[in-house]
């Protein structure tokens, strides 16, 4: 579906006459191009591209806002290996990703299939399911924090009705992360639903008809038509959910501030603490670059798959 957008509309018939004019056009259009580009490119280089390079440089410095900068080579990176909080933050983030991504993807897909049926009122349900995604994270994390309270929280009271003695959630080192994950799933499955819906609507209807004529059951149609045809979309959703989840921050900050102990300290939360509460800017940059390396790896995997994955189109 989205493949159509990258097709450069340079048809052969266009190509031939263009080439003769090209040299002249290029010179003449240089100034026009500059006019169109300048406002954006200026801001882009100063506030987007340059800071990326600066982050690399900074990660080799000991920079604490008050004392100024001192070059210290790879010390920051070596320090990562002996930093227990960093190790916890990395592991916590991986834990968050490994649990929340599969669940948001599966729930997103299931809900997309449900609301993709030709039934009345589906538009309403779609709106409802996307609603959590747009609510302010700080506000809604606050609500969940209250819902999670061990004694007066709604969740444990509901569990109590079924005779289940709920855990202490955010104040329990074991249950705090599942609590953060649950909120995150609630918040983002609707986003995945939208992407899956776009994918589902790209599957030709006649394939389903053909499968029905061949006597395929509903489940068989899903298993042998929908799932394989949706696999590029699914893969894509998994990758962007993974990249997004590695950057989890807001909910951890509001609900637990990384605690109890360091049970919910995520990579970005740790970057924030090191950089803006302890003001070790150089070390914080080194941690940020670890995050970048992880995201970069997933981006590469994605590029590789796009080249090699069968897309059935």
């Amino acid at each position, binding site marked *: 579906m989205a493949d159509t957008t990258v097709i450069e509309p340079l048809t052969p018939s266009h190509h031939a006459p263009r080439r003769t004019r090209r040299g002249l056009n290029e010179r003449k259009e240089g100034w026009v191009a500059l006019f*169109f580009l300048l406002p954006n490119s200026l801001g882009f280089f100063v506030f987007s591209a340059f800071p990326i390079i600066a982050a690399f440089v900074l990660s080799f410095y000991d920079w604490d806002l008050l004392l100024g900068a001192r070059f210290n080579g790879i010390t920051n990176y070596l320090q990562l290996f002996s930093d227990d909080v960093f190790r916890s933050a990395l592991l916590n983030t991986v834990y968050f990703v490994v649990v929340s991504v599969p669940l948001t993807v599966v729930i997103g897909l299931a809900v997309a299939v449900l609301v993709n*049926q030709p039934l009345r009122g589906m538009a309403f349900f779609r709106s409802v399911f996307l609603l959590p995604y747009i609510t302010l994270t700080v506000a809604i994390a606050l609500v969940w924090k209250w819902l999670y309270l061990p004694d007066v929280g709604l969740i444990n009271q509901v569990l109590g009705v079924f005779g289940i003695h709920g855990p202490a959630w955010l104040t329990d080192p074991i249950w705090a992360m599942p609590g953060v994950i649950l909120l995150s799933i609630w918040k983002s499955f609707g986003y995945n639903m939208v992407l899956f819906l776009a994918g589902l609507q790209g599957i030709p209807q006649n394939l389903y008809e053909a499968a029905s004529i061949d006597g395929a059951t509903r489940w068989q149609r899903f298993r042998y038509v929908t799932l394989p045809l949706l696999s590029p979309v699914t893969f894509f959703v998994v990758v962007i959910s993974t990249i997004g989840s590695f950057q989890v921050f807001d909910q951890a900050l509001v609900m637990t501030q990384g605690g109890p102990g360091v049970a919910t300290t995520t990579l970005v939360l740790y970057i924030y603490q090191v950089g803006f509460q302890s003001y070790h800017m150089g070390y914080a940059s080194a941690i940020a670059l670890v995050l970048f390396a992880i995201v970069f790896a997933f981006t590469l995997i994605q590029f590789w798959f796009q080249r090699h994955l069968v897309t059935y189109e």
Partner: protein
Amino acid sequence: MSSITNTNGTGMARKSSSSKRRRRDLLMAVSSYLLLAVLAFITLIPIFWMILSSFKSQNEVLHFPPTWLPEVWHPDNYIQAINFAPFGQYLLNTLFIALTITVIVVTTSGMAAYAFARLRFRGRDLLFLVYLSTLMVPGQVTIIPLFILMRNLGWIDTYQGLIIPQAFSAFGTFLLRQFFLTIPYELEDAARIDGASRFRCFFQIIVPLAGPALASLAVFSFLYQWNNLLWPLIMSNSDATFPIAVGLRNFQGQFANVWNLLMAAATMATIPVIAVYLFTQRWFVKGIVISGFGGR
């Protein structure tokens, strides 16, 4: 199951199987609705809970068992919350910051995207590659150098410090370029032959045709900025510049367990985005799809 019906030869069997199928479809529809209703209920509980609790008294929010509807409605919770922290100011700050960023993003990215999609100039592909490569870098990598830059510029705790660094990511340019490429060349070529300048082409052909894409980017960027926490958390440190997300977080620090006031504040922070979402949903959904798939 339906494979059995196909092997059945007689008309009688086919008839009864088709009514069986209709019954199964109905059952499927009913169970789908039931499932959807339960899911929708779970999805909406936290939001309803927030709104309803914001009207309860301080005793009632701690009631056991909890009440759904407030026994006595307390709209004065909102006045109390505003008396403790200037939420009106926070909301105006957020609106101003998010709107300004959105306007800058849409206009400058639109122009740059036009240059990348339609104009021929030296170094175009290289420059675009630079834009593209920054898309792989998570925003948290740049906040530290940006913060130092802001400090040197003296932009800490200012509107420009909250706005300008957030308004020039490669994302919008990339998104719009992909969309502009799908607009047929013929339209513009015809206008060019009639003597229209590139500027006229941009404003009179590309911009009108790209309306939905521009609207999607605008809605997406606005809602994203409304929700943005990390950058303003670092940048602003006074009521004059706090956006609602940071204001609410500070409020939480002061009124940790006053749940009715916290919920009133949270509701004030959330209702505006929900309203924007309900009115612009179509573009927002489109924005998710085109940004999600990013023209890949």
